[in-house]
């Protein structure tokens, strides 16, 4: 059930109305029931897998929290972590591992035994991963680690815990919420507050705008050019790559805005996911502003423990931890070498930035602040755009073709339908304007939260009219649903 569908709008309206009509003690049950209903819209049998994750994580959490014997606690901790990772690996990586193993065996047979016969991978599975499985398992693992570290108590109420993992606004693609942020909110009595509804709806509107008017419009050009790189000129490919950065941002931050907005209408504050990343002045800063709920998850539960354990290596601990984290983060997107290169490129530049930070700081002192910012933003944007070429390509060879042609293929700009480029550029300009305004001139003026009722509402109506007239309604799913 996609957020931009009429069916979801109706579903959400019913959920919200009954949610506020019900007394507090039944509300969690209603939220849980709506989460189950939402999940059943994908593939009903997969609800069994999610139920298994819920049960094992909840029970292990209780055992880790209650047991006085650290050995017993460790046992439950490991079992539950392995169960979660096992499910994730099975659905996302079985084909990658079996195919890589078969390729390796064929390679050895060919090279060492000069055999011309090849074996085929009979273990290929043809299954679609359960909806939101990465996000659900990551939240479950984070919950277990927090209890193991003694930072938070285990949740005693199975129903409340299930509601945390099955909270429908964040099921499909996050944010990767923390249990200790969500569960206290679930227990707290939440009166109907106009402010929550208004803030939530405004965020949903902006998210819809980003998805339907900007992202799905950019998708048209990007999907016409990048998969057919061999037929396009360097300049068209550059335009498509730049468009893809904005498409990705508008799509994923648009989704996140809607998820956060739906939660807000119901009175929940879930983690934010983006903080104007395209205005970051370094790639290090970029990763503090992009997919925040996942990058902080990796920082807390993956990067920091590695860096601490290896801290006697000095600076190399940071290099080692950064590379490992980003390669795993890349691999998390899918079992393809393109994602691993994408992650490796992030780890590489973070290391370079870490080693050169003092030198860069000295240079910065000699350059005017405005120019500094501009150089930083341009470099960060360009580097991220370059790494996204690998992210978008199906195979490494496709990515290399795009890069090669960017530098070598002369020719005109691909413009089958000029209006697509014009609308795309208008969308990008508007998004950039809003982001720059919010970053640098936030107190100067505001349309979104203008004190004047008429100005404020005219602006909402304008956005709505643009969505209805210029929105692309057949653009399909959000990019991050597949991960």
């Amino acid at each position, binding site marked *: 059930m996609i957020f931009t569908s009429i069916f979801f709008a109706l579903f959400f309206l019913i959920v919200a109305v009954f949610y506020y009509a019900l007394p507090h003690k039944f509300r969690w049950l209603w939220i849980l029931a709506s989460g189950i209903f939402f999940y059943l819209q994908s593939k009903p049998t997969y609800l069994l897998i999610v139920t298994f994750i819920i049960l094992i994580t909840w029970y292990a959490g209780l055992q880790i929290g209650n047991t006085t014997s650290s050995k017993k606690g460790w046992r439950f901790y490991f079992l539950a972590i392995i169960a979660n990772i096992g499910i994730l690996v099975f659905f996302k990586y079985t084909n990658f591992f079996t195919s890589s193993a078969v390729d390796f065996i064929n390679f050895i047979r060919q090279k060492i035994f000069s055999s011309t016969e090849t074996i085929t991978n009979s273990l290929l599975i043809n299954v679609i991963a359960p909806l939101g499985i990465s996000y659900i398992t990551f939240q479950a693992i984070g919950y277990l680690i927090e209890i193991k*570290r*003694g930072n938070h108590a285990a949740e005693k109420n199975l129903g409340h815990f299930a509601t945390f993992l099955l909270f429908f606004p964040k099921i499909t693609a996050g944010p990767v919420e923390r249990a200790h942020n969500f569960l206290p909110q679930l227990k707290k009595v939440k009166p109907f507050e106009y402010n929550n509804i208004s803030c939530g709806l405004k965020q949903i509107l902006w998210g819809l705008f980003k998805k339907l008017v900007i992202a799905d419009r950019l998708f048209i050009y990007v999907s016409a050019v990048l998969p057919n790189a061999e037929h396009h000129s360097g300049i068209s490919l550059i335009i498509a790559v730049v468009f893809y950065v904005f498409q990705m941002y508008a799509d994923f931050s648009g989704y996140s805005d809607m998820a956060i907005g739906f939660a807000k209408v119901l009175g929940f504050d879930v983690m934010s996911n983006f903080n104007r990343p395209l205005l970051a002045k370094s790639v*290090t800063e970029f990763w503090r502003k992009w997919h925040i709920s996942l990058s902080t998850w990796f920082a807390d539960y993956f990067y920091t423990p590695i860096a*601490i354990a290896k801290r006697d290596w000095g600076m190399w601990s940071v290099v080692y931890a950064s590379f490992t984290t980003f390669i795993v983060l890349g691999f998390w997107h899918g079992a393809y070498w393109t994602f691993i290169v994408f992650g490796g490129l992030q780890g590489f530049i973070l290391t370079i930035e870490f080693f050169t*930070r003092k030198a860069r700081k000295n240079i910065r002192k000699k350059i005017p602040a405005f120019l500094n910012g501009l150089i930083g933003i341009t470099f960060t944007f360009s580097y991220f755009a370059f790494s996204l070429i690998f992210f978008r390509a199906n195979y490494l060879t496709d990515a290399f073709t795009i890069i090669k042609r960017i530098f070598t293929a002369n020719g005109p700009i691909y413009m089958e339908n000029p209006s697509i480029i014009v609308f795309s550029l208008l969308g990008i300009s508007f998004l950039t304007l809003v982001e720059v305004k919010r970053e640098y001139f936030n107190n100067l003026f505001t349309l979104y939260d203008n004190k004047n009722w008429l100005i404020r509402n005219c602006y909402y109506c304008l956005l709505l009219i643009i969505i209805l007239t210029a929105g692309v309604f057949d653009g399909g799913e959000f990019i991050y649903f597949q991960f």
Partner: protein
Amino acid sequence: MDGNEILKQLNEIFNEELDTDDIKLNNRTTANDVDGWDSLSHIQLVVAIEKRFKIRFTAKEIQSWNNIGELIDCINNKLPV
């Protein structure tokens, strides 16, 4: 060593490691208040603190401090009386 002395030394370490001279720590300072104190430089700071005070933190301790005051308490507990 009293809390003020530890704070003074921490101030030196932070300015040295983050290559600046405008950091002024107090007990309530958090990572958000210090420019450049992020997850990458955190480990570097921890190593420098361990060297200066000749102590060793556990992984759990390193991840538990919410502000400089808690870091100072942790150092104080590890120093010989």
